[in-house]
């Protein structure tokens, strides 16, 4: 078989030309259709999970051509539209996991018993330092107090909530992975010290992190899933119920509906229980580990509770997703609105569906007049989150 095959046998040549054109044409199809009919996008293999940085619109100027940014933007767009991309990335990720034990998502590492975590959580836990916390908290707590005073002056309620970190809950699964210089005492006293400082300053705080850590070992499963970074449904149920207890104490015994639930253990986790597992985008991999599924068993209708008509804002990070949904649907905070990382997305209504994305400060200002405002920070970002200080700035205008 030599030159004659590609020149003489027309059919073979045509077949080869068609095969060569297949991928470029499907790529162009994907590019053309993406904005109008994303369901028609052709992709080999399951779609990739995880958020990536938003892309700037292509700048078609001569300047962009000269500095190469136009070429890079076109190249990136075409690369992303390639139908083989999901399959090839998953193939590469699975091979690297098998050969080197490395995950494809940046910062995701595996601890003992297959537990996954994002490295920043581990770094924070391993660098806990009470003096640094004191310094950070002494700047941050007065701002929290200002927020609380602002709402109380208007006859409203403000509550500051701390959610747990998986590493702080299961340190034994992770701290052997890295050099962990923080002292045992600094790690143990981190939350108690912060709580004391908050209480001394008169800030009303609900420490759901300590509550969750206190439940460790009570169930046959951990309160954090093996392939996830957030608390599981049992963790959420306990946290929401505890919040409702606090709210009922603050706003009257029948303000919100207490939770009652049963649970079963499944070995087919899904949703938030697999968020990190999904993120590593492996091939043909199905998560198989035990995780609880909670079934809520409430009898009284929401109409019997004051919370159903109360305007509530929940401002927080990723731990407030399932937490907000349960609070709304089971705790009867029917008018709860969730501001995910303040500006990133706005959720409301049954199922806490995404209503809008990329909010502006003007979208947050109405929260000044809400009846109940819950501000969440994770224990790994105490006084260092972006959303909480920004909320303070927007609400108080300074």
């Amino acid at each position, binding site marked *: 078989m030599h030159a004659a095959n590609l020149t003489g046998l027309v059919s073979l040549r045509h077949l080869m030309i068609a095969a060569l054109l297949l991928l470029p044409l499907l790529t162009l199809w994907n590019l053309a259709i993406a904005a109008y009919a994303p369901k028609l996008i052709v992709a080999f293999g399951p779609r*990739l999970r995880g*958020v990536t940085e938003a892309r700037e619109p292509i700048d078609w100027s001569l300047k962009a051509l000269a500095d190469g940014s136009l070429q890079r933007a076109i190249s990136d767009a075409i690369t992303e539209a390639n139908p083989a991309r999901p399959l090839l990335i998953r193939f*590469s990720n699975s091979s690297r996991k098998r050969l080197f034990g490395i995950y494809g998502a940046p910062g995701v590492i595996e601890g003992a018993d297959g537990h996954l975590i994002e490295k920043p959580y581990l770094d924070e836990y391993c660098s806990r330092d009470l003096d640094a916390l004191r310094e950070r908290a002494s700047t941050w707590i007065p701002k929290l107090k200002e927020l609380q005073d602002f709402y109380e002056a208007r006859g409203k309620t403000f509550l500051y909530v701390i959610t747990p970190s998986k590493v702080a809950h299961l340190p034994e699964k992770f701290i052997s992975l890295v050099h962990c210089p923080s002292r045992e005492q600094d790690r143990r006293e981190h939350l108690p010290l912060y709580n004391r400082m908050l209480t001394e300053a008169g800030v009303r705080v609900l420490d759901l992190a300590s509550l969750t850590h206190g439940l460790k070992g009570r169930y046959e499963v951990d309160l954090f899933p093996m392939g996830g970074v957030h608390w599981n449904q049992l963790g959420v149920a306990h946290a929401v119920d505890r919040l409702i207890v606090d709210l009922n104490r603050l706003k009257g015994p029948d303000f919100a509906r207490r939770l009652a639930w049963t649970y079963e253990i499944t070995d087919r986790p899904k949703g938030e229980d697999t968020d990190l597992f999904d993120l590593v985008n492996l091939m043909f991999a199905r998560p198989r580990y035990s995780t609880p599924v909670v079934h809520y068993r409430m009898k009284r209708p929401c109409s019997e509770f004051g919370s159903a008509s109360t305007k509530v804002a929940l401002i927080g990070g990723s731990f407030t997703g399932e937490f907000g949904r349960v609070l709304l649907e089971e705790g009867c905070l029917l008018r709860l609105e969730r501001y995910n990382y303040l500006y*990133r997305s706005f959720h409301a209504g049954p199922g806490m569906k995404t209503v809008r994305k990329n909010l502006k400060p003007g979208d947050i200002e109405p929260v000044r007049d809400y009846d109940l405002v819950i501000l969440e920070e994770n224990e790994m970002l105490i006084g260092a989150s972006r959303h909480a200080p920004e909320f303070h700035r927007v609400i108080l205008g300074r």
Partner: protein
Amino acid sequence: MLFYEPFFALFVAPAFYALYLAINNRAAAKKSALIVASVAFYTWGEPLFVPIVIVSTAVDYWLSQRMALSSSQTARRAFITVGILLNLGILVFYKYVGFLAENLNLLLGPLAGTQLPILQIALPIGVSFVVFEKISYLVDVYRGTTKPACTILDYSLFVFLFPKLLAGPILKYHEMERQFADPAKVGWTDFQEGFLRTARGMAKKILLADPLGAFADRVFAADATTLSSTDAAVGLVCFALQIYFDFSAYSDMAIGLARTLGFRLRENFNMPYISRSLTEFWRRWHISLATWIRDYLYIPLGGNRSGEYRTYINLWICFLASGIWHGASWNFVLWGAYNGLFLSLDRMFLLKFLDRIGNFGATVITLLIVTFGWAIFRTTSVEHLAAFTGALAGLSPRMVDVDMQADVPLTLAIGLFLCLLPATPLFAPLQRAYNESRLLQGLAALAILVLWVLACGRAFAVPFKPFIYFRF
């Protein structure tokens, strides 16, 4: 646009190749398609430099025609001088103006009382390769080794042919003349062998060179006074393997892509790390540059025909030129001098000594010489080199560990195995078995195919940085 980027490998290349096959029987159309594609390819990466190369190509072509028509040796000499100066002018302007100004300022600044401005000129990718090829054409025509290109399209194709445009191999016009005048029809073997060669190059670049390079980069970016000798040594070995796999991979891709288009380029690497002397190393490493320097610099300088000392001087001039060709920095000059020194020592006594101690010892000593040469090449300044050499010798006052990615140890082992296997007695029977067995050849092709798929996946995966939320 790099050959291993998904944009090129899975979009541009197959689309262009489909077009190329569609006009496989029409040589003139193929030439035009290749020139358009090659100029577009270069414009994609260097939009501001391409017009200069186009004009300079036209000037070369005109000068070569004048040289061929002129019967006066003086005029011919004038044409070749102008041609070489213009081409070297391009190289000097883009590559060395800043370096020259910096050094002139250091040298003359205190006397002159004023400083030359340091121009910030972006170095166009491939400029050194393009300029050397263009000079080879002019010299070949001047020497009468070849006639001038029949048409400016033929010469433009020689200058712009995209597979070799960015990083060689450096073509010599007289070797390629016929292929450019009448591009061969592409056959199935061209496609098969070309594709497998390209795939091998992609796998070498992405799966071996890049992970090793990532660790080498960390080691060379670290403060050398804090490096342990182990980290410094491992980082240096990683760099030695990175530069080989990276550069030879690019040559594989260039040779493979050219082959799929029906062009046959000369080999650029031939298992260099099994060399038993530095002289042999330079016959196996970047062959197209070494032979270019031999043909267009060493021999015109007199080569080894003018006595022993003159030969040493010629060697030093050639390797200093080779060093400075790699980049505008004193480290490259030093690296050139280092190579010149060992090649001179080879001629004086080292070759005889290495012959006497046997293959194993000779290969080990040569590897040590070459590897330390890479330290000169990779460090960023003479001070950095001194500190790095101190770290290699265990003289660093402070020790800070450099984090090693989990993929480095296995990749390093595979890289060393691949580089050094040809030096073992196992290699010859393995190669014989491979040549005689169609099954082995098929399995090797299948393995390359799998590695190519892995490399494509990695090329897609590296820029894909997913995270759950905008968290921090």
